[in-house]
C-alpha cells in the first residue's frame, strides 16, 4: 500500500488539476511520522532519478531536521550524490529560521552562521510566508526550468510552520503550492497532538491523501491494564499502524491499513497481521445465510439442470437463445450452444426459456447498465 | 556571580563561611557548607534540619481565613532583630513600620521570667553566648534546646518585642502600595548590597520579609494584571514559584488561590532568588490567594479549616484538635550543595500554642480511622490533599 501511495505521488497531477498532496500525521505516542516521510522522500527521489516520475526535481523545505541529515539520508539510500543539486534542493528553515544567527554574526557576537550553498538555500524569516512561497517556487523552477517540467515539494513539518504563523496563512501557502501548475506533488508531516482538532482538520482538508500513524495498542487499548503501559510505549516507538485515506479523483475514498515496523535498515510495511484479520472477521455479525458462494458451490450450481431445461435424456438440450437463424446457417453445433427446441408436437404447450448470459455471476454488484452508452 | 568568583584552590577547601559562623550568633553551620539561620520557631528549625539555609527564598502560601502566615513572618523577623541582623520588611500596608510593634518578644531561656538584663542585651548576644556553656552545665533536662538557644529563641506571642531590638539602623520598611516591581527589586538589591558591604564578609545575614506579595493593593498589581487576565496562567504561576524557591512552606489554608499574576512577578521572584542567593540572606515571601481553583489543590496545598467553627469530623480524626491553631504543610525543601533530598518525617504539622504563648509544631496525631469513612488523613504525602478536600467538603 505504501507503494501505491508513492505511485500516486509519482504519477503526479493531471493537467488542470490540483497536485496530489500527502499529509503524514503522527502523535507523540507513536512518533513515526518522520520515518515515513523519509521513506516516501527516498522513494520519490529514486523515481525522479530513474526518470519514472512526472516530476523532474524535488524541493525540500526543511523545518525540523538539518539539511545535512537529508543529504546523508539520500546518500545512504543509494542515491547518487554527484549531482544532487541538479534535481534536489533544500530550503533550510532549520538552521536559522528567524535570522538570529545572521544578525548575531553581523554584530560580531558569533562567528559562524549557516550560509546558502549549492543545494541548500537558507531561509532567514520563516514568518514571511509570501516570501517563503516565492522562494519555494523559485527553487523549483531553478531545478526544472520555466517550461512544462514539474517538480515536487516536501515540507517536513507543518507543525513547525504553524507555530510561527496563523493557520489561515499557512493553509494559504499549502494550497497555493498545490495549485501551482509546475508542482507535481506535495507532501508534509504534522504532529497532531500539538494542534487543535480544527487545525488538523484544515490541513487534512487541504490534502488528497492522509496517512496517519497510530499506535498498535490503540486498537487494543481497552483490553490492556496500566501495568502493561511501559512495554507498549516501547512497542509503539518502533512499530505502528499505518492508516491511509485516499481521496480519489472521481470522488471515491479508499481506506487502507498496514502495519509498519521501523528497523535498522529502514521502514517496512506489512499487511495487517492475520491475527488481527481473524479478529476483524469475528467482529462481523454472524448471519444465518451466506452472502457468497464458494467456488465449488458455483461449479455445482452450474451443473444443475433446471426443470424447464430438462428434456428427454437422449435428446440434446436445446434452449432458445434468440438467434435461431444464425444457428441454422451454421448447422453443426455443440451441445453448449444449445439449439432451440424443435417443436415436434406443435399444438401442445411449450416453454421457451432464454438463458441469461453465463459470464455474470448472480447477485453481483456490477451495474447491469454498465455497458450502456448514454 | 559572587559565588563563582570565590577562589577554589583545592577540592578540599573549606567553605569560607564555616569558620566565622561559630562566632556569629544566629548562624549555624549546616551540612555541605551551608549555613542556617533560624526561622524563629524552634520546631520548624528542627523539622527543616537546622533552619533556613542562607541564600534561600521561602514561599509561604497564605490562608485567606486565618493569618497564620503572620505568625511565621513575625517570628522570622523578630528572630532576625534579636540577632541584630539587617531586615527589610515590605508590606502592602500604608505604614509598614507599625507592624514591627507586633513582633513577639523572646522568652528567657532558663526560667519563666522575662528577660530583664537589658544592658547585657544592648551589647549584643555575644556575651550571653559566651556564658552559654556554664549555663548548660547548670541546666537540667533541656540542654539540647539550650545549646542552640541563642541560635533560636522561643518567642512569647503575648509580649511585644522590646524596644532595644527595634533601635537598629538596619531595619528598612517598605510599603508596596506605590511600588513598581522594578523599584522594588532595586530596593532589595541595594539593601542587600549595603549590608554585605557594611558588615564585611559574613558578619550578618540579612533577612527580607515580604508580606502579601500578590495583594491587589500593591502598586505593581493593577498595572500588570491587566495584561494577563488569562486565568490559564495562574496555575503556571503558582507552580513556577513553587519550583523557584529553595524552600517552600505552605501554611495551612483553604487553598483558595487565584491571582492574576503574570510573568513579571515571576521574573521578580526569580531575580530576587538570584540576589538572595548571592548575598547570603534569606527572603520570605507570603502570597495571597483569592479564589478557589480546584486543580491547585491536587498539587499544592493541604487545606484544613481550623479557624473559627469547629469541624466535628476533623475533631474525631485528629487527637489534640482542640489545641491546634492551624496546620502547616511543607511542600518543598530544596537543598543547596547536595543532591540528596531531605526526607521529612511528615509534611503536615499542626501549629499549637504552648502555654498560650509560644509556637509549637507537632506531627499530627491521627486517631484510628473509622472504617466507614475510609478517607485517610495521613500525615505524609501531600498528594492526598485532593482526597482530603473531597472528604471535608467545605
Amino acid at each position, binding site marked *: 500500500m505504501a507503494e501505491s501511495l508513492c505511485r500516486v505521488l509519482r504519477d503526479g497531477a493531471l493537467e488542470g488539476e490540483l497536485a496530489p498532496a500527502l499529509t503524514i500525521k503522527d502523535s507523540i505516542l507513536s512518533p513515526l511520522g518522520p520515518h515515513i516521510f523519509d521513506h516516501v522522500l527516498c522513494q520519490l527521489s529514486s523515481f525522479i532519478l530513474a526518470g519514472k516520475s512526472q516530476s523532474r526535481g524535488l524541493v525540500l523545505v526543511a523545518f525540523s531536521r538539518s539539511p545535512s541529515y537529508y543529504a*546523508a539520508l539520500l546518500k545512504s539510500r543509494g542515491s547518487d550524490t554527484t549531482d544532487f543539486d541538479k534535481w534536489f534542493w533544500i530550503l533550510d528553515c532549520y538552521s536559522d529560521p528567524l535570522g*538570529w544567527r545572521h544578525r548575531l554574526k553581523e554584530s560580531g557576537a558569533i562567528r559562524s552562521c549557516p550560509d546558502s550553498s549549492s543545494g541548500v538555500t537558507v531561509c532567514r524569516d520563516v514568518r514571511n510566508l509570501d516570501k517563503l512561497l516565492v522562494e519555494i517556487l523559485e527553487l523549483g523552477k531553478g531545478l526544472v526550468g520555466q517550461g512544462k517540467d514539474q517538480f515536487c515539494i516536501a515540507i517536513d513539518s507543518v507543525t513547525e510552520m504553524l507555530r510561527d504563523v496563523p493557520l489561515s496563512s499557512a493553509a494559504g501557502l499549502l494550497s497555493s503550492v498545490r495549485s501551482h501548475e509546475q508542482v507535481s506533488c506535495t507532501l508534509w508531516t504534522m504532529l497532531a497532538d500539538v494542534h487543535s482538532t480544527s487545525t488538523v482538520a484544515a490541513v487534512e482538508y487541504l490534502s488528497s491523501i492522509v496517512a496517519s500513524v497510530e499506535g498498535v495498542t490503540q486498537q487494543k487499548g481497552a483490553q490492556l491494564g496500566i501495568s502493561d503501559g511501559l512495554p507498549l510505549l516501547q512497542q509503539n516507538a518502533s512499530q505502528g499502524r499505518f492508516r491511509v485515506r485516499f481521496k480519489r479523483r472521481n470522488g471515491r475514498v479508499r481506506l487502507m491499513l498496514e502495519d509498519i515496523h521501523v528497523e535498522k535498515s529502514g521502514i517496512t510495511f506489512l499487511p495487517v497481521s492475520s491475527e488481527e484479520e481473524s479478529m476483524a472477521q469475528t467482529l462481523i455479525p454472524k448471519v444465518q445465510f451466506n452472502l457468497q458462494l464458494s467456488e465449488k458451490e458455483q461449479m455445482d450450481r452450474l451443473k444443475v439442470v433446471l426443470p424447464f431445461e430438462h428434456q428427454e435424456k437422449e435428446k440434446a438440450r436445446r434452449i432458445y437463445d434468440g438467434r435461431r437463424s444464425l444457428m441454422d446457417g451454421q448447422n453443426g453445433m455443440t451441445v453448449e450452444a444449445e439449439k432451440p427446441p424443435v417443436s415436434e408436437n406443435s399444438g401442445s404447450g411449450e416453454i421457451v426459456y432464454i438463458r441469461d448470459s453465463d459470464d455474470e455471476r448472480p447477485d453481483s454488484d456490477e451495474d447491469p447498465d454498465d455497458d450502456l452508452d448514454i | 556571580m559572587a559565588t563563582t568568583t570565590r577562589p577554589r584552590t583545592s*577540592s578540599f577547601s573549606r567553605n569560607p563561611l564555616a569558620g566565622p559562623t561559630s562566632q556569629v550568633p544566629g548562624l549555624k553551620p549546616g551540612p555541605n557548607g551551608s549555613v542556617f539561620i533560624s526561622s524563629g520557631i524552634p520546631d520548624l528549625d528542627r523539622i527543616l534540619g537546622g533552619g533556613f539555609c542562607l541564600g534561600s527564598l521561602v514561599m509561604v502560601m497564605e490562608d485567606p481565613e486565618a493569618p497564620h502566615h503572620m505568625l511565621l513572618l513575625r517570628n522570622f523577623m523578630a528572630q532576625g532583630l534579636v540577632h541584630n541582623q539587617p531586615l527589610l520588611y515590605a508590606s502592602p500596608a500604608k505604614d509598614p513600620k507599625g507592624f514591627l510593634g507586633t513582633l513577639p518578644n523572646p522568652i528567657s531561656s532558663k526560667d519563666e521570667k522575662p528577660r530583664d538584663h537589658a544592658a547585657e542585651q544592648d551589647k549584643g548576644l555575644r556575651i550571653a553566648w559566651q556564658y552559654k556553656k556554664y549555663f548548660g552545665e547548670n541546666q537540667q533536662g533541656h540542654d539540647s534546646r539550650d545549646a542552640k538557644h541563642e541560635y533560636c529563641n522561643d518567642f512569647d506571642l503575648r509580649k511585644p518585642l522590646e524596644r532595644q531590638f527595634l533601635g537598629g539602623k538596619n531595619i528598612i520598611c517598605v510599603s508596596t502600595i506605590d511600588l513598581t516591581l522594578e523599584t522594588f527589586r532595586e530596593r532589595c538589591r541595594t539593601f542587600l548590597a549595603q549590608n554585605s558591604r557594611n558588615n564585611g564578609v559574613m558578619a550578618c545575614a540579612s533577612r527580607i520579609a515580604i508580606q502579601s506579595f500578590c495583594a491587589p493593593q500593591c502598586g505593581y498589581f493593577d498595572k500588570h494584571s491587566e495584561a494577563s487576565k488569562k486565568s490559564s496562567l495562574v496555575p503556571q504561576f503558582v507552580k513556577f514559584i513553587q519550583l523557584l524557591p529553595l524552600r517552600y512552606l505552605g501554611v495551612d489554608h483553604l487553598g483558595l488561590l487565584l491571582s492574576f499574576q503574570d510573568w513579571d512577578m515571576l521574573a521578580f521572584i526569580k531575580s530576587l532568588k538570584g540576589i538572595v542567593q548571592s548575598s547570603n540572606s534569606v527572603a520570605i515571601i507570603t502570597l495571597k490567594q483569592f479564589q478557589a481553583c480546584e486543580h491547585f489543590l491536587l498539587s499544592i496545598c493541604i487545606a484544613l479549616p481550623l479557624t473559627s467553627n469547629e469541624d466535628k469530623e476533623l475533631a474525631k480524626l485528629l487527637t489534640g484538635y482542640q489545641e491546634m491553631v492551624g496546620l502547616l504543610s511543607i511542600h518543598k525543601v530544596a537543598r543547596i550543595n547536595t543532591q540528596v533530598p531531605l526526607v521529612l518525617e511528615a509534611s503536615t504539622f499542626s501549629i499549637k500554642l504552648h502555654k498560650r504563648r509560644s509556637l509549637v509544631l507537632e506531627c499530627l496525631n491521627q486517631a484510628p480511622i473509622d472504617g466507614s469513612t475510609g478517607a485517610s488523613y495521613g500525615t505524609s504525602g501531600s498528594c492526598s490533599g485532593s482526597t482530603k478536600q473531597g472528604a471535608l467538603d467545605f
Partner: protein
Amino acid sequence: MDRSSQLLDEALGIVDDTSSMVSSSFPSSSVVLIEDCVETSGAFVIHHILKRSLSPPSSAAVVLVSLSHPFSHYDRILRKLVHTFALSLSFVLFSQGCNLAAHRDNRRFFFCDMLMVDFPRQGQGNVSKGGLIELYAKIQKVVEDISSSFGSGKCITIILDDFSLIEVAANGSLNHSLDFLRYCYALTSEFGLGLLVHTSCGGVYPLPSIQGCSLVILHHEDIYSAEESAALILQMEYLADVVIKAEPLATGLAADVHGQLTVLNKGIHDQLRSSKSKVHNFHFKLRENGVECFYPGTQA
C-alpha cells in the same frame, strides 16, 4: 563498587567503550529531556550526566547554562560524586569526584551563570526578545570556541538548567521559548561535524555520521495545568531522543526510595548506529556520592 548507576547509564545510552578508546561516552547529537516535578527533583540526572561527560573515559566538553543554581552548588555536588569504571574486567579504577573548577580551567567545562542576569523586558504585549537571543549567542560562542580549540571532533554537551526559567525570561511567551529551543536544537546537528566530503559539483555534504552537540534540558513538568501549555511539553518530548521523567512513588515518600525514573529512549535511527527504542522504569535513591538505581523490590 556496585552497579549503582549502571541502570541509569544503560537507559541513557551511555556505554563505556573500553575496547576502543573512543572519546564519546554520551551519545552525541542527541537531545535528552528531563522532566521532574515539585515532589521529586530530577536535577541529579544532570549531575550524573555532568559527571559522566567530564570524567574518563569520556573527553567531552560541557557547557552548563544555569538559571537556577550558582557554580558553587554544582561544584560541591560534583566533588562528592564518585564514579567507577572498569578498564578491563579484572582491573577496576576508582575515580574520585570531579573538580569542576579544574575542568573550567582546562576549558572543558563552561559555566554560563544566568542566575543574576535579568532579562530585559519591555511593556506588556511586546515581548522583548533580546535576552534569549543574547543567551543563545553566548552558548554558540562557547561552542565555537570549544570546537576551534579542540578540533571539530570534540563532543560537546550543552546542559540547560532549567527550561522553565527560560520561559520566565521569555516573559511566558511559549513561542519565544520554543524559538530559543529550536535554535539550541539546531546546534545538535551542526558543530563537531565529522568529515566533510567535497563532491564534484562543489556541494559539501557530510558523511552520514553527523556528530553534533548533545543537548540536555531539565524541565518541570507540573507547571502546566492548562491544556494549551501542554503543547510545549509535547513538542519538547517530540524533539527529544531520550525522555526522562522523575516522579515520586505512587505510594508517597519513603526513606529508602527517593522516587522513580521512567526513561524512554527512542533510540537513534542513525545510519551508523542504530538502537532500538527502550523504556526503562526503576526506582532510585540518591546519595552524596552518586545515585543508586534499582528495579522495584530488588534493593539489597
